[in-house]
């Protein structure tokens, strides 16, 4: 079984991303599965440190991310400092020997806090705070270090391939480190070339040059830590990231109106939908026979207030409508979310949550918004909150969310996070047609008439009209109303309408299948159960492989809460809740609905995702009797 963890680090905006994508795609082309997540600072350039950390394997998913990696490609001296503690014994690090002499404080763009801490460390160790010392330290931890003088090497290669400008040459650093890494992994250079071609896009000449660089560099590295023999994968695979998987999910789910205001880490979701416009169609539906592609409106609005209001209007018009945002944007959408509840309009809100509060850490992850998602919006109204655990689930959930918003005419919050948004993967293609698209048909009258959209129906669902098609004259309204949709404050009518709306919660609870509510992994008779939600899933599942006998309950539908199911799985068990926030929100939610208290909680709130090793640590400390475990690893 192949399972290799890797890391690519370098100055932000200077090719780290390209290098990582090259590597991921190269390895993917060779028939492996791979994923990597991106960590970066919330400013554009200026030399802050950024990195990808991921996993390569011959099965999907290729296991969790631990606290250390096997292969580290460090593009500059700053990266050496940042990842000194991130490489495992027996692993290998690639770096630029020309940076040896640089000191810690010469890296102006390093967090000053980190500089001070590392400074302390070197002092304690009696070492000079230089890159060289850091490299020595890394070696002392049983790590093989492969250094090359990057600029010198590139200058030589440049001479061969006819590039001399230093600026141009510096652009080859990403290819250089990837080629070094590939050599170390025993990956034939032709796959690196595929990675190069994919990552660099359509610039032909540039691709050719980079390919030559790769070939030259490959010759310079003779060591090897692994041998990735090209293999034929079991299934067809796709390369995408979390933002894209969800975006495509919505498109598949029939969403044709997307309004948004840019915000990290959500923007790439609607922007992908925009880039892909118009979308290719299958020759199935009558109305589409004549067309090869269909359009959609993807609308950048002036703010988030407008984004969700526009989606609400589109939903009224009859389109499947969605918006995407993160915490600050969702806060601005709160008033309209409440309106969706009252007026009974279905909109999907993909919440790409990030580390808060406020602007917080715009490019770091956090699971801080669970209870907020559940209780957002003044007043009481039906709403759905679903959290996805991984890329595949996120894709399917996006389709389901589109179904539910349309069917129940309620706001649906699809809870994902920065971790998922920036996870890039080569993985098996989920079956794009396995989720049935459920689209209720509108009522169409034979001739024009006044209609009651808010009839007091038994299931609570409003009557569905398509304006301009239904021949219905009707009123949609945010005030409490009578069946005609006009304001009514009569106490009895108020109560009836309120109940009618809330009945939808029962309907939703009844109709959403169990596997969308919770998923249980591990032995049914486990006496200890880890409870979690969202993107901790992969890390917990990987940890579970080592924690034999432990169960894992993944919470998926967070509202309406599947209290009975959760009770069934947790009653009488020892529970450890693991999640990326301070107050252990899911444990609060579980207790609110079931009365069951967590035996222990393990939380992380330093802006970094929970790793597989975090999970193992949490479990160990749980077994030692700790009640509140704070996870702190920074990777």
């Amino acid at each position: 079984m192949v399972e290799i963890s890797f890391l690519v680090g370098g100055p932000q905006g200077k090719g780290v991303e390209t290098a990582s994508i090259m590597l991921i795609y190269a390895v993917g082309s060779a028939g492996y599965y791979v994923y990597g997540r991106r960590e970066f600072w919330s400013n554009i350039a200026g030399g802050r440190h950024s990195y990808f950390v991921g996993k390569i394997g011959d099965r999907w998913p290729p296991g969790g991310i631990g606290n250390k990696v096997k292969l580290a490609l460090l593009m500059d001296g700053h990266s050496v400092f940042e990842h000194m503690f991130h490489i495992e014994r027996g692993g290998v690090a690639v770096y630029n020997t020309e940076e040896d002499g640089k000191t810690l404080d010469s890296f102006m763009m390093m967090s000053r806090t980190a500089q001070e801490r590392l400074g302390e460390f070197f002092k304690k160790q009696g070492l000079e705070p230089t890159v060289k010392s850091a490299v020595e330290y890394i070696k002392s931890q049983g790590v093989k270090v492969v250094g090359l003088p990057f600029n010198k090497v590139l200058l030589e290669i440049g001479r061969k391939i006819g590039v001399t400008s230093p600026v141009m040459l510096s652009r080859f650093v990403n290819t250089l480190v990837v080629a070094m890494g590939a050599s170390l992994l025993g990956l034939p250079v032709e796959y690196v070339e595929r990675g190069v071609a994919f990552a660099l896009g359509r610039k032909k000449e540039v691709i050719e040059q980079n390919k030559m660089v790769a070939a030259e560099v490959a010759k310079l590295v003779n060591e090897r830590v692994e041998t990735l023999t090209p293999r034929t994968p079991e299934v067809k695979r796709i390369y995408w990231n979390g933002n894209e998987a969800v975006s495509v999910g919505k498109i598949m789910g029939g969403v044709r109106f997307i309004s948004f205001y840019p915000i990290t880490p959500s923007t790439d979701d609607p922007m992908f939908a925009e880039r892909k416009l118009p979308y290719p169609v299958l020759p199935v539906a009558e109305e589409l026979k004549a067309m090869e592609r269909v359009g959609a409106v993807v609308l950048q609005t002036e703010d988030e207030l407008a984004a969700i209001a526009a989606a609400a209007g589109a939903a009224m018009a009859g389109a499947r409508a969605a918006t995407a945002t993160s915490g600050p944007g969702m806060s601005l959408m709160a008033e309209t979310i409440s309106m969706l509840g009252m007026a009974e309009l279905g909109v999907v809100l993909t919440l790409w949550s990030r580390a808060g509060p406020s602007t917080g850490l715009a490019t770091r992850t956090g699971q801080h918004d669970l209870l907020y998602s559940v209780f957002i919006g003044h007043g009481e109204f039906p709403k759905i909150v679903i959290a996805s655990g991984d890329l595949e689930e996120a894709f399917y959930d996006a389709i389901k969310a589109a179904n539910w918003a349309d069917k129940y005419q309620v706001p649906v919050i699809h809870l994902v996070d920065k971790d998922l948004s920036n996870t890039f993967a080569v993985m098996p293609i989920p079956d794009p047609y396995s989720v049935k698209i459920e689209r209720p048909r509108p009522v169409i009258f034979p001739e024009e008439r006044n209609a009651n959209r808010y009839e007091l129906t038994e299931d609570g669902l409003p009557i569905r009209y398509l304006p301009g098609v239904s021949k219905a004259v009707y009123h949609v309204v945010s005030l409490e109303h009578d069946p005609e949709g006009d304001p009514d404050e009569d106490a009895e009518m108020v109560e009836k309408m309120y109940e009618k709306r809330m009945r939808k919660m029962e309907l939703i609870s009844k109709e959403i299948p169990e596997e969308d509510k919770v998923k249980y992994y591990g032995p049914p008779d486990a006496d200890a159960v880890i409870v979690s939600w969202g993107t901790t899933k992969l890390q917990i599942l990987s940890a579970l492989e080592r924690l034999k006998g432990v169960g894992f309950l993944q919470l998926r539908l967070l509202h309406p809460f599947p209290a009975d199911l959760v009770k069934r799985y947790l009653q009488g068990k020892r529970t450890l809740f693991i999640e990326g926030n301070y107050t252990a929100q899911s444990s609060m939610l579980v207790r609110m609905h079931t009365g069951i208290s967590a035996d222990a909680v393990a939380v992380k709130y330093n802006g970094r995702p929970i790793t597989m090793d975090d999970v193992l640590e949490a479990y160990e400390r749980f077994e030692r009797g700790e009640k509140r475990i704070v996870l702190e690893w920074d990777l």
Partner: protein
Amino acid sequence: MTTVVKVKRTPQDYKWTKPPEWCPGCGHFGVLQALLQVFAELDMDPTRTVLVSGIGCSSRLPHYVRTVSAHTIHGRAIPFAIGLKLANPNLEVIVVGGDGDLFAIGGNHILGAGRRNVDFTVILMDNAVYGLTRGQAGPTLPLGMQPKALSKPNPHADLNPLLVALASGFTFLARSYSYDIKYTAKVIKEAILHKGSAIVQVLSPCVTYNNIMTREWYEKRVYKLDNDPTWDPVVHDEKEDYEKKKRAIEKILEPDRLALGVLYKNELVPTFEERYIAMYDPNYAKIPPALQPVEKDGKSVIDFYKLMADRIL
């Protein structure tokens, strides 16, 4: 405006089942009357015409009209209407709202709307106060004025809604006066017929709270542009635009007087719908988002493998 229907309707046909609940004498009645009249004149299809409003006395108007409507939340009528219109450009979309709704809490969406030039109409029912919340100062109430609900004179100056709309990109600007129902109907009709984003400021007194800007107050100030036979607010050629804008602004800023009529009209600016067709999706008008079938027998109509072709290994 995009279609014509056969059976000719009367204003009466556009009355909803319940009567207005405004204070007797409220200016908003005039806007309602004018609208019903225009709808009848244009014989608009009530099932394809959508009135959208926010919250306010003015925003109640849709409940008195027999068309499809959405009475949304305070300040968000415009983006709601834009979403609705863009999801189905075959609908006739008209926003009505007060000065508070459209230019205080909703002001940002005027800026957003102007940039798009969506083919829709905004009717501002301007009484310079917040009627529904009992008479506080609206964004069009002049500095130092103290209508009866205020305990102190207004420390805010008024903004100029039509100038804001022009600065944002609205391609049709007009003003009317609600007690002149006929004229208001005429102006609103032109606005609805305009291709692009149109705004009509209707001076619509609040008889309950604005005891200063009353019928008398307005009637001392208003005059009709139509009386000047040389007045031509239409941009016939893009080259004229700069001049026509300047002339419109001259009228809009005119001190102490309130010109009624069409101030500016430019149909040469492409509508958002036209831009979308040109730059995004040639089939947009034919089969817009709201009218697309998204599934066939429960299966998505999208060709996933083609959509993601460049990503499949």
